[in-house]
Each structure stands twice: as structure tokens, then as C-alpha cells.
């Protein structure tokens, strides 16, 4: 099957400064791709392109065979959702937050499905509470549910567990793995945590200074990286 995303000579520049320059990258359907690299390497910028929040300034990006631009239909854009490092919950109840993405699509989350999500995430007792009064872990669980109830074809994750305790990290990793298997969705997971990348990813893409240095299956990336920079990064050393 053709990949869901393809980038060819894709560049992103701000005020004339190129911050991302990808020669070629294909992201397969149903794979979990970890984007790793030091701060400022372009991971989040790449995620913004994949999320259609910004178009590339040069080169080509296609989503399911269609060129990504301002004319990408809404129905295509809605096949992708994202969760960021900060959950950015809305000033409404936990239940309303979980159903928000479906509401945008003119659908309503059935009560029994909402109850199942709340129970699965340990949030049943907080359903009617304002989402702004949740702890960091609870809030991120709500953000994950909000992104997943729409049954996306692609889930983009931008360091969603960076500020969480090990319990919540484990819970979110399990949740993503279960949903990924159930829906067959593609997951692109930005993380600075190489151990997490090793736990969750099928493939790893290593970015450095806006360029793709190495893309390999996770086992190869961590045991026999092709480049010295990737090897150093996998050992936890500072690379730039």
C-alpha cells in the first residue's frame, strides 16, 4: 500500500531562515514512527506540517496521495488529530472536552461510549467537573481521549508525556498502543525520550538541525545505527 504521507524536498522557512529541510520521507499506514532529535531539530515543525497547520514553503507534501495545501478538503484534514505537550483543555466539563472533536464533526459521543472512555481512563468521578481543575496527568488523559474518540487515521503526538509521572506515561503508552492496534491508525510520536521511542516505535526518524539524518526500524536504530550522530544520540549523548 502507498504511504499515507510523503515528503519530497520539503522545506519550511520562517523569515527566510530554513528550519526544516527533508529530502525524502515516507510514513506508512498503520506504523508508529518516533521522531527523535535534540531541541530545535525541527521535530515539532515537521509535526505541524503533518497536521496541516502550516504548508511547506518549498517542496512537496502529500497526504494519502493528495498534495497538502490550503485546498485540502476538510474531510481529509479531519482524518488527522493531534495531542500536544500541554493538553490545552477547554473551559468546560471533562465530558464536554472528550466529546468536543466529535461535536465539531456534527456528531455526538453516545453516553455509553463516553462512560466507557471515562472508566478506561479512571475519570468517571470527574465527568461533570471543570476540565481546568484536573491534575496534569488527568488533563492529558482527557486530551488523549478527545483526540481518539474521533477514530482518526493518523494520530500526531508532540511530547504528550513530557511532564507526566511514570504511571501516567505508562497509561498513555498503553492507550495509544491499544487504539493503534484496534483502529490500525498511523502514529507519529515526537519524543525526546529515547527509551520511550524504543518502547513504542516501529520506526525511528532522527532529525538534527532540521535535516533527517537517519530513518530506520527501531531495533536497527538502537542497536546498529548507520550514522555516528544517531549512535551518539541513542547512547544519550548530546549531539548538535
Amino acid at each position: 500500500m502507498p504511504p499515507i504521507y510523503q515528503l519530497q524536498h520539503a522545506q519550511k522557512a520562517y523569515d527566510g531562515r530554513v528550519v526544516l529541510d527533508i529530502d525524502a520521507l515516507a510514513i506508512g499506514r498503520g506504523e508508529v514512527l518516533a521522531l527523535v532529535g535534540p531541541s530545535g531539530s525541527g521535530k515539532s515543525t515537521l509535526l505541524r506540517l503533518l497536521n496541516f497547520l502550516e504548508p511547506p514553503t518549498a517542496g512537496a507534501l502529500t497526504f494519502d496521495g493528495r498534495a497538502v495545501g490550503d485546498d485540502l478538503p476538510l474531510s481529509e484534514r479531519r482524518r488527522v488529530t493531534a495531542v500536544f505537550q500541554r493538553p490545552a483543555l477547554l473551559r468546560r466539563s471533562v465530558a464536554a472536552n472528550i466529546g468536543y472533536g466529535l461535536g465539531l464533526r456534527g456528531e455526538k459521543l453516545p453516553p455509553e461510549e463516553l462512560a466507557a472512555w471515562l472508566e478506561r481512563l479512571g475519570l468517571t468521578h470527574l465527568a461533570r467537573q471543570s476540565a481546568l481543575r484536573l491534575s496534569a496527568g488527568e488533563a492529558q488523559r482527557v486530551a488523549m481521549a478527545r483526540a481518539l474518540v474521533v477514530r482518526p487515521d493518523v494520530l500526531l503526538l508532540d511530547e504528550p508525556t513530557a511532564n507526566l509521572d511514570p504511571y501516567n506515561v505508562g497509561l498513555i503508552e498503553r492507550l495509544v498502543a491499544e487504539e493503534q492496534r484496534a483502529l490500525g491508525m498511523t502514529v507519529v510520536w515526537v519524543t525526546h525520550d529515547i527509551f520511550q521511542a524504543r518502547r513504542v516505535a516501529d520506526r525511528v526518524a532522527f532529525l538534527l538541525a532540521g535535516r533527517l539524518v537517519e530513518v530506520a526500524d527501531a531495533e536497527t536504530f538502537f542497536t546498529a545505527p548507520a550514522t555516528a550522530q544517531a549512535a551518539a544520540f541513542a547512547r544519550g549523548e548530546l549531539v548538535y
Partner: protein
Amino acid sequence: METLLDALREALRLLIDLDPALVEIIGMTLRVTGSALLLAVLLGLPIGAALGLRERIPAAGCLMPIIYTGMALPPVVAGLFVYLILSNQGPLGGLDWLFTARAMVVSQTIIALPLVIGLTLTALRGLDPGIKLQVRSLGATRLQLATALLLEARLGVLAAIIAAFGGIVSEVGAVMLVGGNIEGQTRVLTTAIVLETRRGNFALALALGIILLLLAFLTNWLFHKLSDG
């Protein structure tokens, strides 16, 4: 102190007796201020939202100082402007609105509009940028995004409406100039207070002041309840 106590007694008496003249003045105050507030919100909210939702405000270096200056516009200057426009020699003199409630509504709308625009756009620009990013990434259309952000900023938007209400219900300069304080036609609480003070009826003037404060308190209490909900 005695005058103050007299004023309190007088205010109570006027309210209990439902003095017809007072009821007429309160009604006119609510009609003029309510209409002006409604117009300012209907015009100002979309303008404030359109500016506040943009990545960059066009000609911000010029536009923002104009809006902020408008927020500090002295009511009497707004009144003078409307007076000149609506006077016989003015461009809209043919409307024959001078010394009518309509002229008062126009001048109060001009006073309230910059407050609604300025505070709405400030409330929207003060939102966490992560909210905008998240709502867009969940597949919102432009209209859904604007609605979501306005709802997120609703406390700030409500503050804009409260500030505009406070600014116009208490102003006297503009309504006096363009309304003329005509009994039964354009007399509102503030102009009645000025009149009674000039007549030396301090107790009655203070009583009217207390009623104005009560009216403002009740309206703001209502706004507060709405924001809590």
C-alpha cells in the same frame, strides 16, 4: 450626614411610592443605555473578534492606539461630535434626531464601541495560543474556531460588556448635550441628578444617585451570575 440620611429616606420613599416621574426616568435610562449597549455589542464584538483572532492585527501600530484612545474618549467630546453631526447645519441634520432619545443612543454607542472592541480583542489575544492550535488540530472550521475562542474568552468578553455598560450608564456629558434633559422625553438618571443639584434639591439628587448605583449594581450582579454560569 443629615443630607445623606435624608437622601436615603428620599430614595426609599421614591422607590416604595413608585413615583411616576422616577419610573419614567429609570425607564428612559434603561432604554437608552440598553439600546446603546446592544448596538455596541452587535458592532463591537465581531470587530473585536475579527481583530483578536488574526495572527497579526493590520496596521497595529496605528489601529491599536486609535482603539485605546477611543476607550478613553471623554463622553462630552462624543456628545459634541454627535451634536455637530445632527444639528441643523450638520450633515445628518435632516434626520431631526437632535434632542431625542435616538441621539442619546448614538452618542452612547460611540462611547461604548471602542470599549467593547478593545477589551474583546485583548481578551482573545490573551488566550493560551495552545488552545487555538489544539482546536484547529481537532478539525475545526474557521467559524468553529472563532466560536470556540470567543467561548474560551467569555469572561474577558463579559468584562468588555460590563465596562461598556458602566461607561455609558454613568455618563452625563453626552446625553445632556444631545438629549437636552427634556422632562418625559430625554431625561435620564444622570441628567436628572445634575438638574436637581442645580435646583438645590440635594436629597433628591443624592436619592437619584443611590438609585443609579443600585441599578448598576443589579446589572453587574446579573452579568456576574451569567459569567459564573
